[in-house]
Protein backbone atom coordinates (compact mmCIF):
# COMPACT_ATOMS: atom_id res chain seq x y z
CA UNK A 1 0.00 0.00 0.00
CA UNK A 2 2.86 2.35 0.96
CA UNK A 3 4.70 1.48 -2.24
CA UNK A 4 1.49 1.93 -4.25
CA UNK A 5 1.04 5.44 -2.86
CA UNK A 6 4.68 6.26 -3.68
CA UNK A 7 4.22 4.99 -7.24
CA UNK A 8 1.03 7.06 -7.60
CA UNK A 9 2.89 10.10 -6.30
CA UNK A 10 5.67 9.51 -8.88
CA UNK A 11 3.01 9.20 -11.60
CA UNK A 12 1.36 12.53 -10.76
CA UNK A 13 4.70 14.32 -10.41
CA UNK A 14 5.63 13.18 -13.92
CA UNK A 15 2.26 14.25 -15.32
CA UNK A 16 2.65 17.70 -13.71
CA UNK A 17 6.14 18.08 -15.16
CA UNK A 18 5.03 17.25 -18.71
CA UNK A 19 1.59 18.86 -19.00
CA UNK A 20 1.74 19.12 -22.81
CA UNK A 21 2.29 15.39 -23.25
CA UNK A 22 -0.56 14.71 -20.85
CA UNK A 23 -2.83 17.20 -22.64
CA UNK A 24 -2.12 15.62 -26.03
CA UNK A 25 -2.98 12.13 -24.82
CA UNK A 26 -6.09 13.30 -22.97
CA UNK A 27 -7.30 15.36 -25.97
CA UNK A 28 -7.15 12.40 -28.34
CA UNK A 29 -8.79 10.06 -25.83
CA UNK A 30 -11.44 12.69 -25.08
CA UNK A 31 -12.28 12.82 -28.78
CA UNK A 32 -12.56 9.02 -28.86
CA UNK A 33 -14.91 8.89 -25.90
CA UNK A 34 -16.95 11.92 -26.87
CA UNK A 35 -17.59 10.55 -30.36
CA UNK A 36 -18.12 7.05 -28.92
CA UNK A 37 -20.50 8.37 -26.26
CA UNK A 38 -22.39 10.40 -28.88
CA UNK A 39 -22.90 7.31 -31.03
CA UNK A 40 -24.14 5.39 -28.00
CA UNK A 41 -26.61 8.17 -27.15
CA UNK A 42 -27.80 8.42 -30.76
CA UNK A 43 -28.25 4.63 -30.81
CA UNK A 44 -30.27 4.79 -27.61
CA UNK A 45 -32.41 7.57 -29.09
CA UNK A 46 -33.09 5.63 -32.29
CA UNK A 47 -34.00 2.57 -30.22
CA UNK A 48 -36.41 4.74 -28.29
CA UNK A 49 -37.99 5.95 -31.55
CA UNK A 50 -38.29 2.34 -32.72
CA UNK A 51 -39.95 1.33 -29.44
CA UNK A 52 -42.30 4.26 -29.84
CA UNK A 53 -43.42 2.83 -33.16
CA UNK A 54 -43.54 -0.66 -31.73
CA UNK A 55 -45.88 0.56 -28.98
CA UNK A 56 -48.23 2.14 -31.55
CA UNK A 57 -50.63 0.22 -33.79
CA UNK A 58 -48.61 -0.39 -36.92
CA UNK A 59 -51.46 -1.53 -39.15
CA UNK A 60 -54.78 0.34 -39.27
CA UNK A 61 -57.64 -1.36 -41.14
CA UNK A 62 -60.39 1.09 -42.07
CA UNK A 63 -63.71 -0.76 -42.16
CA UNK A 64 -66.53 -0.32 -44.61
CA UNK A 65 -69.67 1.33 -43.25
CA UNK A 66 -72.13 -1.22 -41.94
CA UNK A 67 -69.61 -3.83 -40.90
CA UNK A 68 -71.21 -6.00 -38.20
CA UNK A 69 -69.72 -7.10 -34.91
CA UNK A 70 -69.60 -10.73 -36.18
CA UNK A 71 -67.57 -9.66 -39.20
CA UNK A 72 -65.21 -7.70 -36.97
CA UNK A 73 -64.79 -10.72 -34.66
CA UNK A 74 -64.13 -12.93 -37.67
CA UNK A 75 -61.33 -10.58 -38.87
CA UNK A 76 -59.86 -10.57 -35.34
CA UNK A 77 -59.92 -14.37 -35.20
CA UNK A 78 -58.22 -14.66 -38.59
CA UNK A 79 -55.45 -12.30 -37.49
CA UNK A 80 -54.91 -13.89 -34.09
CA UNK A 81 -54.43 -17.28 -35.76
CA UNK A 82 -51.11 -15.97 -37.22
CA UNK A 83 -49.62 -15.75 -33.70
CA UNK A 84 -47.88 -12.52 -34.68
CA UNK A 85 -50.35 -10.14 -33.12
CA UNK A 86 -49.67 -8.18 -29.97
CA UNK A 87 -53.08 -6.50 -29.76
CA UNK A 88 -56.13 -5.58 -31.81
CA UNK A 89 -58.27 -2.65 -30.85
CA UNK A 90 -61.57 -1.62 -32.40
CA UNK A 91 -61.98 2.15 -32.86
CA UNK A 92 -65.60 3.16 -33.55
CA UNK A 93 -66.61 6.16 -35.67
CA UNK A 94 -67.31 8.15 -32.47
CA UNK A 95 -63.91 7.30 -30.98
CA UNK A 96 -62.25 8.22 -34.29
CA UNK A 97 -63.91 11.64 -34.10
CA UNK A 98 -62.65 12.16 -30.56
CA UNK A 99 -59.11 11.24 -31.58
CA UNK A 100 -59.34 13.54 -34.58
CA UNK A 101 -60.57 16.43 -32.44
CA UNK A 102 -57.91 15.86 -29.82
CA UNK A 103 -55.12 15.86 -32.37
CA UNK A 104 -56.37 19.03 -34.01
CA UNK A 105 -57.61 20.92 -31.00
CA UNK A 106 -55.35 23.87 -31.76
CA UNK A 107 -56.89 24.23 -35.23
CA UNK A 108 -60.66 24.54 -34.77
CA UNK A 109 -61.22 25.24 -38.50
CA UNK A 110 -60.36 21.60 -39.21
CA UNK A 111 -62.76 20.12 -36.66
CA UNK A 112 -65.76 22.44 -37.11
CA UNK A 113 -67.58 20.55 -39.85
CA UNK A 114 -66.35 17.04 -39.15
CA UNK A 115 -68.87 14.53 -37.82
CA UNK A 116 -68.57 10.89 -36.82
CA UNK A 117 -70.37 9.81 -40.02
CA UNK A 118 -67.58 10.79 -42.36
CA UNK A 119 -64.89 9.02 -40.34
CA UNK A 120 -64.52 5.26 -40.80
CA UNK A 121 -64.43 2.76 -37.94
CA UNK A 122 -61.14 0.93 -37.80
CA UNK A 123 -59.15 -1.94 -36.31
CA UNK A 124 -55.76 -0.89 -34.93
CA UNK A 125 -53.40 -3.83 -35.03
CA UNK A 126 -50.05 -4.06 -33.25
CA UNK A 127 -47.69 -6.79 -34.34
CA UNK A 128 -45.21 -8.42 -32.00
CA UNK A 129 -42.31 -7.68 -34.36
CA UNK A 130 -42.13 -4.67 -36.64
CA UNK A 131 -41.01 -6.72 -39.62
CA UNK A 132 -44.30 -8.71 -39.59
CA UNK A 133 -46.41 -5.69 -40.32
CA UNK A 134 -46.26 -6.05 -44.13
CA UNK A 135 -47.57 -9.61 -43.97
CA UNK A 136 -50.34 -8.62 -41.52
CA UNK A 137 -51.24 -5.59 -43.65
CA UNK A 138 -51.68 -7.88 -46.67
CA UNK A 139 -53.83 -10.28 -44.68
CA UNK A 140 -55.99 -7.42 -43.42
CA UNK A 141 -56.35 -5.94 -46.89
CA UNK A 142 -57.66 -9.27 -48.19
CA UNK A 143 -60.65 -9.12 -45.81
CA UNK A 144 -63.83 -8.12 -47.73
CA UNK A 145 -65.02 -5.69 -45.02
CA UNK A 146 -61.78 -3.72 -45.06
CA UNK A 147 -61.89 -0.64 -47.21
CA UNK A 148 -58.32 0.56 -46.85
CA UNK A 149 -55.16 -0.26 -44.90
CA UNK A 150 -52.56 2.17 -43.54
CA UNK A 151 -49.28 1.00 -42.14
CA UNK A 152 -45.89 2.40 -41.22
CA UNK A 153 -43.80 0.25 -43.51
CA UNK A 154 -41.64 2.96 -45.02
CA UNK A 155 -41.03 4.86 -41.78
CA UNK A 156 -40.06 1.75 -39.88
CA UNK A 157 -37.95 0.30 -42.67
CA UNK A 158 -36.05 3.58 -42.99
CA UNK A 159 -35.65 3.85 -39.27
CA UNK A 160 -34.34 0.30 -38.96
CA UNK A 161 -31.95 0.96 -41.83
CA UNK A 162 -30.69 4.17 -40.19
CA UNK A 163 -30.30 2.51 -36.83
CA UNK A 164 -28.18 -0.21 -38.39
CA UNK A 165 -26.11 2.32 -40.34
CA UNK A 166 -25.52 4.41 -37.21
CA UNK A 167 -24.43 1.27 -35.39
CA UNK A 168 -21.99 0.18 -38.12
CA UNK A 169 -20.54 3.65 -38.69
CA UNK A 170 -20.30 4.09 -34.91
CA UNK A 171 -18.46 0.81 -34.40
CA UNK A 172 -16.04 1.60 -37.26
CA UNK A 173 -15.32 5.15 -36.07
CA UNK A 174 -14.94 4.07 -32.44
CA UNK A 175 -12.60 1.21 -33.40
CA UNK A 176 -10.47 3.60 -35.44
CA UNK A 177 -10.38 6.18 -32.64
CA UNK A 178 -9.53 3.58 -29.99
CA UNK A 179 -6.61 2.39 -32.11
CA UNK A 180 -5.52 6.02 -32.56
CA UNK A 181 -5.73 6.52 -28.78
CA UNK A 182 -3.57 3.45 -28.17
CA UNK A 183 -0.95 4.73 -30.65
CA UNK A 184 -0.97 8.24 -29.19
CA UNK A 185 -0.61 6.87 -25.64
CA UNK A 186 2.23 4.68 -26.87
CA UNK A 187 4.02 7.69 -28.40
CA UNK A 188 3.42 9.95 -25.36
CA UNK A 189 4.58 7.33 -22.86
CA UNK A 190 7.52 6.45 -25.13
CA UNK A 191 8.49 10.13 -25.09
CA UNK A 192 8.16 10.24 -21.30
CA UNK A 193 10.37 7.17 -20.98
CA UNK A 194 13.10 8.89 -22.99
CA UNK A 195 12.67 12.07 -20.90
CA UNK A 196 13.21 10.00 -17.75
CA UNK A 197 16.07 7.93 -19.17
CA UNK A 198 18.53 9.16 -16.55
CA UNK A 199 16.09 8.63 -13.69
CA UNK A 200 15.38 5.09 -14.93
CA UNK A 201 19.10 4.36 -15.15
CA UNK A 202 19.59 5.54 -11.56
CA UNK A 203 16.57 3.56 -10.38
CA UNK A 204 18.10 0.43 -11.89
CA UNK A 205 21.45 1.12 -10.24
CA UNK A 206 19.95 1.47 -6.78
CA UNK A 207 18.05 -1.78 -7.16
CA UNK A 208 14.55 -0.86 -8.35
CA UNK A 209 12.66 -3.83 -9.74
CA UNK A 210 11.28 -3.88 -13.26
CA UNK A 211 7.75 -3.59 -11.86
CA UNK A 212 8.68 -0.56 -9.76
CA UNK A 213 10.05 1.24 -12.81
CA UNK A 214 7.26 0.19 -15.17
CA UNK A 215 4.21 0.76 -12.94
CA UNK A 216 4.18 4.61 -12.89
CA UNK A 217 4.09 4.59 -16.71
CA UNK A 218 1.13 2.17 -16.68
CA UNK A 219 -0.63 4.35 -14.10
CA UNK A 220 0.05 7.37 -16.27
CA UNK A 221 -1.68 5.81 -19.29
CA UNK A 222 -4.58 4.57 -17.16
CA UNK A 223 -4.99 8.04 -15.66
CA UNK A 224 -5.17 9.63 -19.14
CA UNK A 225 -7.95 7.16 -20.02
CA UNK A 226 -9.85 7.77 -16.79
CA UNK A 227 -9.61 11.56 -17.03
CA UNK A 228 -10.70 11.52 -20.69
CA UNK A 229 -13.70 9.33 -19.84
CA UNK A 230 -14.74 11.73 -17.09
CA UNK A 231 -14.39 14.87 -19.22
CA UNK A 232 -16.13 13.32 -22.23
CA UNK A 233 -19.09 12.12 -20.14
CA UNK A 234 -19.48 15.59 -18.65
CA UNK A 235 -19.24 17.09 -22.15
CA UNK A 236 -21.85 14.61 -23.46
CA UNK A 237 -24.15 15.49 -20.56
CA UNK A 238 -23.71 19.21 -21.22
CA UNK A 239 -24.35 18.67 -24.95
CA UNK A 240 -27.57 16.74 -24.24
CA UNK A 241 -28.83 19.43 -21.86
CA UNK A 242 -27.98 22.10 -24.42
CA UNK A 243 -29.63 20.24 -27.30
CA UNK A 244 -32.73 19.17 -25.36
CA UNK A 245 -34.95 22.14 -26.35
CA UNK A 246 -34.20 21.54 -30.08
CA UNK A 247 -34.76 17.80 -29.78
CA UNK A 248 -38.02 18.38 -27.93
CA UNK A 249 -39.22 20.82 -30.58
CA UNK A 250 -38.66 18.44 -33.49
CA UNK A 251 -38.90 14.97 -31.96
CA UNK A 252 -41.00 15.70 -28.88
CA UNK A 253 -43.50 12.89 -29.36
CA UNK A 254 -40.76 10.25 -29.02
CA UNK A 255 -39.77 11.44 -25.49
CA UNK A 256 -36.04 11.13 -26.24
CA UNK A 257 -35.20 13.83 -23.69
CA UNK A 258 -34.71 14.24 -20.83
CA UNK A 259 -32.22 11.36 -20.85
CA UNK A 260 -32.27 9.38 -17.61
CA UNK A 261 -29.16 10.44 -15.60
CA UNK A 262 -28.49 6.75 -14.90
CA UNK A 263 -27.58 6.43 -18.60
CA UNK A 264 -24.68 8.84 -18.00
CA UNK A 265 -23.54 6.89 -14.94
CA UNK A 266 -23.40 3.73 -17.07
CA UNK A 267 -21.72 5.66 -19.88
CA UNK A 268 -19.08 6.97 -17.46
CA UNK A 269 -18.54 3.47 -16.05
CA UNK A 270 -18.13 1.92 -19.49
CA UNK A 271 -15.90 4.71 -20.79
CA UNK A 272 -13.77 4.64 -17.64
CA UNK A 273 -13.19 0.89 -18.03
CA UNK A 274 -12.36 1.21 -21.73
CA UNK A 275 -10.20 4.29 -20.98
CA UNK A 276 -8.19 2.54 -18.29
CA UNK A 277 -7.71 -0.44 -20.59
CA UNK A 278 -6.73 1.65 -23.64
CA UNK A 279 -4.35 3.86 -21.59
CA UNK A 280 -2.65 1.03 -19.76
CA UNK A 281 -2.41 -1.09 -22.89
CA UNK A 282 -0.77 1.77 -24.85
CA UNK A 283 1.62 2.33 -21.93
CA UNK A 284 2.34 -1.37 -21.60
CA UNK A 285 3.32 -1.61 -25.28
CA UNK A 286 5.48 1.54 -24.87
CA UNK A 287 7.29 0.12 -21.83
CA UNK A 288 7.87 -3.20 -23.64
CA UNK A 289 9.28 -1.34 -26.61
CA UNK A 290 11.23 1.53 -25.06
CA UNK A 291 11.96 0.58 -21.47
CA UNK A 292 14.92 -1.72 -21.39
CA UNK A 293 15.01 -2.72 -17.74
Amino acid sequence: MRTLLRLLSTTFKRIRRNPYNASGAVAVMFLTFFVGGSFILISLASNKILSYYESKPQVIAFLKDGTTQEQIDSIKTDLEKTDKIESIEFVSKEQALEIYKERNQSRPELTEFVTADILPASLEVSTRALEDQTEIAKLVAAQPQVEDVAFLQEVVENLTKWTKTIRYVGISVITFLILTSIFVTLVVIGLNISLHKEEIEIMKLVGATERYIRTPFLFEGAFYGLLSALISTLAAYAAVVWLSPFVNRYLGEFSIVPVNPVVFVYLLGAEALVGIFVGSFGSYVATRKYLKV
Partner: protein
Amino acid sequence: MITFDEVSKQYNLTSALSDINLEIEDGEFVFLIGPSGAGKSTLLKLLIREELPTAGRILVGERDIASIPESQVPHLRRTIGTIFQDFKLLPQRTVFENVAFPLEIIGLPDEEIQRTTMETLKLVSLDERAEHFPWQLSGGEAQRTAIARSMVQRPDILLADEPTGNLDPQSAWEVMQILAKLNKLGATILMATHNFDITNSLPHRMLEIREGKIAKDTKVKKETKEVKGAKK
Protein backbone atom coordinates in the same frame (compact mmCIF):
# COMPACT_ATOMS: atom_id res chain seq x y z
CA MET B 1 34.50 -12.20 -0.35
CA ILE B 2 34.54 -11.34 -4.05
CA THR B 3 36.04 -13.91 -6.39
CA PHE B 4 36.76 -13.61 -10.10
CA ASP B 5 37.43 -17.04 -11.52
CA GLU B 6 38.85 -17.09 -15.07
CA VAL B 7 36.62 -14.17 -16.04
CA SER B 8 36.71 -12.82 -19.59
CA LYS B 9 34.56 -10.20 -21.24
CA GLN B 10 34.45 -9.57 -24.96
CA TYR B 11 32.57 -6.91 -26.91
CA ASN B 12 32.18 -8.37 -30.39
CA LEU B 13 35.82 -9.05 -31.33
CA THR B 14 37.35 -6.70 -28.76
CA SER B 15 38.52 -8.22 -25.52
CA ALA B 16 37.81 -5.94 -22.52
CA LEU B 17 38.94 -8.40 -19.85
CA SER B 18 40.67 -11.73 -20.23
CA ASP B 19 41.28 -14.54 -17.74
CA ILE B 20 40.90 -12.45 -14.60
CA ASN B 21 41.57 -14.37 -11.40
CA LEU B 22 41.08 -12.29 -8.31
CA GLU B 23 40.07 -12.59 -4.70
CA ILE B 24 39.05 -9.62 -2.59
CA GLU B 25 38.58 -10.16 1.13
CA ASP B 26 35.78 -8.60 3.12
CA GLY B 27 36.74 -5.14 4.35
CA GLU B 28 39.53 -4.54 1.83
CA PHE B 29 40.07 -1.16 0.16
CA VAL B 30 41.14 -1.83 -3.43
CA PHE B 31 42.20 0.73 -6.01
CA LEU B 32 41.82 -0.26 -9.65
CA ILE B 33 44.26 1.73 -11.71
CA GLY B 34 45.24 1.73 -15.34
CA PRO B 35 44.80 3.78 -18.50
CA SER B 36 41.41 4.51 -20.10
CA GLY B 37 39.98 1.48 -21.83
CA ALA B 38 42.06 -0.92 -19.73
CA GLY B 39 38.94 -2.66 -18.40
CA LYS B 40 38.48 -1.05 -14.94
CA SER B 41 34.88 0.07 -15.51
CA THR B 42 34.03 -3.25 -17.17
CA LEU B 43 35.20 -5.06 -14.06
CA LEU B 44 32.92 -2.90 -11.89
CA LYS B 45 29.99 -3.32 -14.32
CA LEU B 46 30.36 -7.09 -14.12
CA LEU B 47 30.00 -6.91 -10.34
CA ILE B 48 26.57 -5.25 -10.52
CA ARG B 49 25.45 -7.37 -13.47
CA GLU B 50 25.28 -4.40 -15.80
CA GLU B 51 27.31 -6.66 -18.04
CA LEU B 52 27.58 -10.43 -18.19
CA PRO B 53 30.96 -12.15 -18.47
CA THR B 54 31.70 -13.96 -21.70
CA ALA B 55 33.42 -16.69 -19.67
CA GLY B 56 34.19 -17.51 -16.04
CA ARG B 57 32.45 -17.10 -12.70
CA ILE B 58 32.07 -14.09 -10.43
CA LEU B 59 31.25 -14.94 -6.84
CA VAL B 60 30.00 -12.42 -4.31
CA GLY B 61 29.96 -14.43 -1.11
CA GLU B 62 28.60 -17.77 -2.24
CA ARG B 63 26.52 -16.40 -5.11
CA ASP B 64 27.62 -16.72 -8.73
CA ILE B 65 26.20 -13.43 -9.92
CA ALA B 66 26.41 -14.32 -13.59
CA SER B 67 23.94 -17.14 -13.10
CA ILE B 68 21.33 -15.50 -10.87
CA PRO B 69 17.96 -14.99 -12.58
CA GLU B 70 17.17 -11.56 -14.04
CA SER B 71 14.49 -10.99 -11.40
CA GLN B 72 17.18 -11.22 -8.68
CA VAL B 73 19.43 -8.54 -10.19
CA PRO B 74 17.70 -5.64 -8.34
CA HIS B 75 18.23 -7.52 -5.06
CA LEU B 76 21.92 -7.98 -5.91
CA ARG B 77 22.26 -4.25 -6.60
CA ARG B 78 20.76 -3.44 -3.21
CA THR B 79 23.71 -5.19 -1.60
CA ILE B 80 26.33 -3.34 -3.66
CA GLY B 81 26.54 0.45 -3.53
CA THR B 82 27.80 2.32 -6.61
CA ILE B 83 29.14 5.84 -7.12
CA PHE B 84 30.20 7.53 -10.33
CA GLN B 85 32.30 10.38 -11.63
CA ASP B 86 29.14 12.25 -12.77
CA PHE B 87 27.33 11.63 -9.44
CA LYS B 88 24.09 10.46 -11.13
CA LEU B 89 21.81 12.39 -8.79
CA LEU B 90 18.16 13.04 -9.65
CA PRO B 91 18.07 16.79 -10.35
CA GLN B 92 14.45 17.28 -9.34
CA ARG B 93 14.87 15.65 -5.94
CA THR B 94 16.46 17.20 -2.88
CA VAL B 95 19.56 15.75 -1.21
CA PHE B 96 17.29 14.02 1.30
CA GLU B 97 15.03 12.60 -1.43
CA ASN B 98 18.00 11.38 -3.47
CA VAL B 99 19.46 9.54 -0.51
CA ALA B 100 16.07 8.23 0.61
CA PHE B 101 15.27 6.92 -2.89
CA PRO B 102 16.76 3.39 -2.48
CA LEU B 103 14.81 3.01 0.77
CA GLU B 104 11.56 4.06 -0.89
CA ILE B 105 12.10 1.41 -3.53
CA ILE B 106 12.26 -1.35 -0.95
CA GLY B 107 9.07 -0.01 0.67
CA LEU B 108 10.35 1.02 4.11
CA PRO B 109 8.00 3.04 6.32
CA ASP B 110 8.39 6.83 6.23
CA GLU B 111 9.69 7.08 9.81
CA GLU B 112 12.44 4.54 9.13
CA ILE B 113 13.39 6.26 5.89
CA GLN B 114 13.59 9.59 7.72
CA ARG B 115 15.78 8.17 10.47
CA THR B 116 18.14 6.11 8.28
CA THR B 117 18.52 8.86 5.68
CA MET B 118 19.38 11.51 8.28
CA GLU B 119 21.86 9.15 9.95
CA THR B 120 23.57 8.54 6.60
CA LEU B 121 23.59 12.25 5.76
CA LYS B 122 25.29 12.94 9.10
CA LEU B 123 27.92 10.35 8.21
CA VAL B 124 28.87 12.38 5.12
CA SER B 125 28.32 15.73 6.93
CA LEU B 126 25.41 16.74 4.73
CA ASP B 127 22.56 16.77 7.25
CA GLU B 128 22.50 20.58 7.03
CA ARG B 129 22.03 20.37 3.27
CA ALA B 130 19.18 17.87 3.30
CA GLU B 131 16.66 20.21 1.64
CA HIS B 132 19.03 21.49 -1.06
CA PHE B 133 18.72 20.42 -4.68
CA PRO B 134 21.74 18.95 -6.54
CA TRP B 135 22.27 22.18 -8.52
CA GLN B 136 22.69 24.04 -5.23
CA LEU B 137 25.61 21.81 -4.17
CA SER B 138 29.34 21.96 -4.83
CA GLY B 139 30.94 19.03 -6.69
CA GLY B 140 32.23 17.56 -3.44
CA GLU B 141 28.84 17.83 -1.78
CA ALA B 142 27.15 16.24 -4.79
CA GLN B 143 29.58 13.32 -4.65
CA ARG B 144 29.05 12.97 -0.90
CA THR B 145 25.31 12.85 -1.57
CA ALA B 146 25.93 10.06 -4.09
CA ILE B 147 28.05 8.22 -1.50
CA ALA B 148 25.28 8.62 1.08
CA ARG B 149 22.76 7.20 -1.42
CA SER B 150 25.03 4.24 -2.19
CA MET B 151 25.50 3.52 1.53
CA VAL B 152 21.97 4.13 2.79
CA GLN B 153 21.00 0.46 2.48
CA ARG B 154 24.19 -0.45 4.37
CA PRO B 155 25.67 -2.57 1.56
CA ASP B 156 28.73 -4.67 2.29
CA ILE B 157 30.42 -3.63 -0.95
CA LEU B 158 30.90 -0.18 -2.45
CA LEU B 159 32.03 0.31 -6.06
CA ALA B 160 33.36 3.71 -7.04
CA ASP B 161 34.08 4.53 -10.68
CA GLU B 162 36.37 7.60 -10.81
CA PRO B 163 34.51 9.26 -7.91
CA THR B 164 37.03 12.10 -7.64
CA GLY B 165 37.41 12.65 -11.40
CA ASN B 166 35.28 15.81 -11.45
CA LEU B 167 36.40 17.25 -8.13
CA ASP B 168 38.94 19.81 -6.99
CA PRO B 169 41.76 18.43 -4.74
CA GLN B 170 40.10 19.55 -1.49
CA SER B 171 36.73 17.96 -2.39
CA ALA B 172 38.49 14.84 -3.67
CA TRP B 173 40.28 14.59 -0.35
CA GLU B 174 36.99 14.93 1.57
CA VAL B 175 35.44 12.17 -0.52
CA MET B 176 38.42 9.92 0.14
CA GLN B 177 38.15 10.56 3.87
CA ILE B 178 34.53 9.42 3.79
CA LEU B 179 35.39 6.31 1.80
CA ALA B 180 38.13 5.52 4.31
CA LYS B 181 35.64 5.97 7.13
CA LEU B 182 33.16 3.60 5.46
CA ASN B 183 35.96 1.11 4.92
CA LYS B 184 36.82 1.30 8.62
CA LEU B 185 33.17 0.61 9.37
CA GLY B 186 33.56 -2.66 7.46
CA ALA B 187 32.62 -1.93 3.84
CA THR B 188 34.65 -3.54 1.07
CA ILE B 189 35.56 -0.79 -1.39
CA LEU B 190 36.64 -1.09 -5.02
CA MET B 191 37.58 2.21 -6.56
CA ALA B 192 38.66 2.80 -10.14
CA THR B 193 40.83 5.89 -10.56
CA HIS B 194 43.44 7.63 -12.67
CA ASN B 195 44.57 9.81 -9.82
CA PHE B 196 47.82 8.49 -8.35
CA ASP B 197 47.89 11.21 -5.69
CA ILE B 198 44.70 9.73 -4.36
CA THR B 199 46.03 6.18 -4.40
CA ASN B 200 49.05 7.28 -2.43
CA SER B 201 46.91 9.05 0.14
CA LEU B 202 45.33 5.95 1.67
CA PRO B 203 46.37 2.50 2.78
CA HIS B 204 45.13 0.16 0.13
CA ARG B 205 45.58 -2.74 -2.19
CA MET B 206 46.31 -1.63 -5.72
CA LEU B 207 45.32 -3.58 -8.82
CA GLU B 208 46.80 -2.33 -12.03
CA ILE B 209 44.86 -3.35 -15.11
CA ARG B 210 46.35 -3.13 -18.57
CA GLU B 211 44.77 -4.36 -21.78
CA GLY B 212 42.17 -6.36 -19.93
CA LYS B 213 44.59 -8.21 -17.65
CA ILE B 214 45.80 -7.69 -14.10
CA ALA B 215 49.32 -6.33 -14.61
CA LYS B 216 50.18 -5.80 -10.95
CA ASP B 217 48.57 -6.62 -7.60
CA THR B 218 50.15 -4.75 -4.67
CA LYS B 219 48.88 -5.62 -1.23
CA VAL B 220 49.49 -3.29 1.69
CA LYS B 221 49.42 -4.59 5.23
CA LYS B 222 46.50 -3.48 7.35
CA GLU B 223 48.77 -2.07 10.06
CA THR B 224 50.66 0.03 7.56
CA LYS B 225 47.39 1.26 6.15
CA GLU B 226 46.16 2.56 9.44
CA VAL B 227 49.42 4.39 10.18
CA LYS B 228 49.47 6.03 6.77
CA GLY B 229 45.78 6.92 6.95
CA ALA B 230 46.22 8.47 10.38
CA LYS B 231 49.12 10.66 9.21
CA LYS B 232 47.02 12.16 6.45
